[in-house]
């Protein structure tokens, strides 16, 4: 029986790479940050996701078909990004397959870039960035860089599963989450998360362009945001607002 999710490599992947994850989530923070990095570093597609669990959508680029969920690469940096919202049926099998692939390719560390939905975001001048890790080693990295750790609470969505599946396989993984709008594209939060990322992995991109082109980015990303919002509702993303229940550790 064929696997429900296949990762098809277009180029050979070198062992020991660092991988960034920027799938659609709150404020499209990961998508905006990942797309900016891919564009500025002129990264090329090194692999793509092939699965019947996604809607029958292709992305046309210079007239040629591409999978909407792709991995771009440059040297030892890999970036996972999607042009479409990931449906709830696809998230778990896809994140499991990606974690298996990460293990197989000997990826050194996985860093998810995302948002932490914050009410009254429009009153926040500079979004703060929080972190979570898959193991003590990952948490140590966050502490060294003075990135505040989310000690307790809920995470929902692709970055949550990636953290959990990497923990199972003892792969160092980190989630960097910037305070963001829930359902409006947030380039300022993307800039904040790239700045935090640069403390851990050097990614030589200037974030000022993200801020300068903020309005254009917000305009262009309305449709993917609308569809992501619909999927977030289905996956009960709002549970991240919930206060964890009391228990004695």
């Amino acid at each position, binding site marked *: 029986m064929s696997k429900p999710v296949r990762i098809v490599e277009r180029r050979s992947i070198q062992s020991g790479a660092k991988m960034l994850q920027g799938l659609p989530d709150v404020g499209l923070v990961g998508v905006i940050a990942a797309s900016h990095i891919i564009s500025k570093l002129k990264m090329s597609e090194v692999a793509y996701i092939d699965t019947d669990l996604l809607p029958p959508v292709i992305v046309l680029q210079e007239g040629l078909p591409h999978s909407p969920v792709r991995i771009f690469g440059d040297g030892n940096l890999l970036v996972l990004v999607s042009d479409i919202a990931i449906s709830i049926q696809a998230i778990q099998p896809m994140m499991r397959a990606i974690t298996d692939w990460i293990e197989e390719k000997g990826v050194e560390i996985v860093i998810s870039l995302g948002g932490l939905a914050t009410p009254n975001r429009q009153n926040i001048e500079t979004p703060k960035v929080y972190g979570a890790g898959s193991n003590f080693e990952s948490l140590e990295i966050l502490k060294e860089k003075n990135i505040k750790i989310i000690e307790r609470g809920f995470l929902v969505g692709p970055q949550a599963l990636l953290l959990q599946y990497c923990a199972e396989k003892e792969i160092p993984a980190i989630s960097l989450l910037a305070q963001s709008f829930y359902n409006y594209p947030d380039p300022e939060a993307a800039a904040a998360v790239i700045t935090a990322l640069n403390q851990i992995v050097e990614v030589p991109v200037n974030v000022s362009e993200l801020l300068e082109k903020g309005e254009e980015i917000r305009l262009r990303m*309305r449709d993917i945001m609308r569809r992501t919002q619909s999927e977030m509702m289905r996956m009960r993303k709002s549970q991240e607002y919930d206060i964890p229940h009391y228990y004695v550790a």
Partner: protein
Amino acid sequence: MTWRRRSIFDLMREYMERFEEMAEEIFEEAFGKPSWDVDSRTLKPLSDITVTPREVIITVDLPFAKPETVRINWVREDMIEVNAKMRTKVRFEDLGVSHREGEFSSFHCPIQLPVPVENREVKISFKRGILEIRLPRKRGYRIRVE
């Protein structure tokens, strides 16, 4: 048949379920149509509604909007519409689309109100390109807690 008096929690759950169903319906309806209209040269902006015990808070993301052109109209008792002109015309080409023709110069957004509101004492602000409209809720009946 056993008749059980509905508790405040039942009512709250029913209200939340109804609200979620309504939101799903709005999403499904929205996806059947494009977020732009070439004839009226308008784009549909992203919007959001929050219901608090006292207010209905509506936000609308309006990048490139001229704040002085933002207009809020009552279409009917349970619907408002937001219109705003953009500082610059945007063509499909500017958005990376080469197989369509047309340009857009304003935003248009009808918004269905989930609960009855007063049309007086409406508070409006525009910050970081986001319009915020605060509408006081109409006072309804109170459920007595015994």
